[in-house]
Each structure stands twice: as structure tokens, then as C-alpha cells.
């Protein structure tokens, strides 16, 4: 089973859920796809990480072939190309590497040059394979790094993917590669608002999903109520507990340090297996 762990906003507890869930699923692969804020690495004391660069193709214009028709400039919706003094000027920082300008150029004047945008580190922790993605600060989009992280996810038996927050392109790239989505919700009104945005994305993509209520204060919260009203499966509740927060904040795994949470995550794994098997 391949599980995407996501949330509408940052700080809801995605990494907390993803790293601890990984530990209770034997041989599960952990993927940190939150490439703009990669923090999964702090929870696995794995050294000897193997690193490789992720590159994208940005355009290079041959001034001898370019006739100045401006088709490429007009095409680029990210405004990464401009036409100055009779020549095309490229802005690689703005380029999303869609390849479109190379296709629209009638003269074949545009070729691609590889530019690094991020890095992937691979390691192990006990029986778990680990993949950590990182985006180079200032780069436009983490999607190329995420696509490379998830390139052979289909061949893995169990994978837990720690996704970026929000409901944009990077999240979409993660969700498309998985069987099931686990949405971490802070059960406040604010949390419900963010959840609804995520839910719209998952419905559009047609992915099954369930909810984890994190920092849950009581049985009746706006988040809990939303799940009842919409008949959504709540697969686990994690209490609002300073003891849990303090273990996590020290970079330790709660399932290794706190027995009750160990059982909570095993229950979560079992419920997930049923949900995914449906």
C-alpha cells in the first residue's frame, strides 16, 4: 500500500504522522516529498546518505537560428523569456521547465540545457528504506524533485509519502502516485477550512481518503463534527498532549518512546489496511 500523508496547511502534523506510521509498517519505504521544508531527516539517525542531483531542462536559444518571431516569448506563461534588442533573453529562475518553448519554436532554435534544482538523499533505518527530497532555495517548483522521488513507487510494496502542505501542483504530483490519502487535520475551525481545500483536490483526482485528527482536545470538535456530518472515516485521533509534542520536538519517534502512541499507530496501520483493501 502506498499512502500519501497530507494536510491543507503546514504544521498540522504530516511529518509526525508519516515518520511514526513508517515505523509500524514493516519494510515500509519513507519518502520525504515536502521538498521545500524537508524535516523528515531529523527523525531517522541514518548517516552514509547517498545523494544525487535532480536536474531540469531549461531553454538555450541559438541566436543564429532565431528569426525573432517571438512565438516562444508569447507562449511562456511563466514569463521566463523576453525579447530585447532583437534577441530572446531567458530567465532560468522563472522557468518551470515545461519544454513548451522548444516545441513552439518554428526554427528549432531552442535546445535544452540541464540545470540542477534539487537533491535526493537515500538511506536506511532498520528495515526501512528512506528517501529525502530537497529543493534548492529560490527554485520555482518542487515537482521535478517529487516526480523523481516517486518514479518507481509502483514497484514498492509499502510506502509512506510525507507530502508538501496545501493543494497545489507538488501535492497533486504526490497524490497521483499513491493508492490512498491520509489527511492530517487539526480539528479547529481553521483546520476544517484547510481540510475542505484538500478534500476538493482529492475528489477531483478521484482518490480515496481518510482523516487523522491531530491535537484533538475532546470528543466534540469542529473537525470531528465535520467528519461525522460528511461520513468520513476517522482512522486515528492523536491527543493534544505536551508529552507527545516534546518527544517529537526532540527529533525522536513517538512510537518508540510512548507506549500508548505505539498502539495508536498500530491501530492506524490496521484500519488503513482495511481501507486500502476495499
Amino acid at each position: 500500500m502506498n499512502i500519501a500523508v497530507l494536510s491543507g496547511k503546514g504544521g498540522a502534523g504530516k511529518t509526525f504522522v508519516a515518520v511514526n506510521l513508517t515505523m509500524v509498517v514493516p519494510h515500509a519505504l519513507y519518502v520525504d516529498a515536502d521538498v521545500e521544508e524537508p524535516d523528515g531527516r531529523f527523525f531517522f539517525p541514518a548517516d552514509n546518505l547517498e545523494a544525487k542531483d535532480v536536474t531540469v531542462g531549461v531553454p538555450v536559444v541559438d541566436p543564429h537560428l532565431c528569426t525573432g518571431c517571438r512565438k516562444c516569448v508569447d507562449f511562456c506563461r511563466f514569463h521566463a523569456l523576453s525579447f530585447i534588442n532583437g534577441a530572446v533573453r531567458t530567465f532560468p529562475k522563472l522557468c518551470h521547465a515545461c519544454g513548451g518553448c522548444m516545441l513552439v519554436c518554428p526554427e528549432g532554435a531552442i535546445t535544452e540545457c540541464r540545470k540542477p534544482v534539487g537533491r535526493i538523499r537515500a538511506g536506511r533505518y532498520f528495515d526501512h528504506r528512506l528517501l529525502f527530497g530537497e529543493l534548492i532555495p529560490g527554485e520555482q517548483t518542487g515537482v521535478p524533485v517529487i516526480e523523481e522521488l516517486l518514479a518507481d513507487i509502483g514497484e514498492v510494496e509499502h510506502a509512506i509519502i510525507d507530502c508538501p502542505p496545501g493543494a497545489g501542483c507538488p501535492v497533486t504530483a504526490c497524490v497521483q502516485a499513491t493508492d490512498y490519502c491520509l489527511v492530517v487535520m487539526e480539528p479547529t475551525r481553521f483546520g476544517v477550512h484547510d481540510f475542505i481545500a484538500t478534500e476538493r483536490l482529492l475528489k477531483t483526482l478521484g482518490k480515496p481518503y481518510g482523516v487523522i485528527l491531530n491535537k484533538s482536545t475532546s470528543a466534540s470538535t469542529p473537525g470531528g463534527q465535520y467528519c461525522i456530518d460528511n461520513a468520513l472515516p476517522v482512522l486515528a485521533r492523536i491527543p493534544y498532549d505536551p508529552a507527545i509534542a516534546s518527544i517529537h520536538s526532540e527529533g525522536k519517534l513517538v512510537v518508540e518512546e510512548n507506549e500508548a502512541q505505539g498502539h495508536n499507530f498500530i491501530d492506524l496501520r490496521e484500519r488503513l489496511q482495511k481501507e486500502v483493501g476495499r
Partner: protein
Amino acid sequence: MRIAMPVEFTSPSPANEVAENFARAQTFVICETESEKCEIVKNSAQNTTSGAGVKAAQIIIDQDADAVIARRIGENAFDIFKEAHLPVYKAEYVTVEENLAAFSRETLPLYVSPSPKGYRKRRGRPV
């Protein structure tokens, strides 16, 4: 000479204020210094999510402007104007008219580097 300035108005008037932001201004006014005629060009870069400075600078260049007067200028737009040999002057006065007069007296300072990042005029969400 054709002088371009970012503004927030759709009909030209010398009393219009120069906008706070270059790339996110609603329109540009292009003034002919000889004839004192002004025309308005829409800024189609106003609500783009990426590369507004590049696109806005392209609009000005395509209008055959000879110089730009702005309150702030971003890095990408600054680079394009530099490459196109278009001088960018700092708007030190409130209105289009006052800045044009100062330009003619050659008292406006020239930008030699882009404005610091992180400034965006507060406004409602684009709809």
C-alpha cells in the same frame, strides 16, 4: 522622448499619481516630452502569478519607450531595462506631471540597482 510610468488610472491626466509598484500597477502612462501627449497602456502583467516584472518590462520596451520613471523596480525588470539600455529613474514626486518636470530638469536620480525585495502594495485579492 517617450517616458513610461506605472499608474493606477485608465484615462491619462497629468495629476495622476505614479504607482507604488512597477510590475503590479494597473496601467502604464507613456508621455511624449515634445508634444506633451500622454497615452495609457494596460498592464497585462498585473495579476500574473509568475514573472510579472519580465512581462511588464516587455510591455514598456514594445511601446518604444526611451526611459522609465518608477518608485520601485524589481530585479528582473531592472535587468531587462539595463539590457535594453533603457534608463530607470526614481520617482521622487507624487504626480506624473511633477516627475516629468523633474525629469526635464534632469534632477531625478537614476536607479543603479533594483529595489530591495519583499515589498508588495497591499490590495484586495485579484478577482
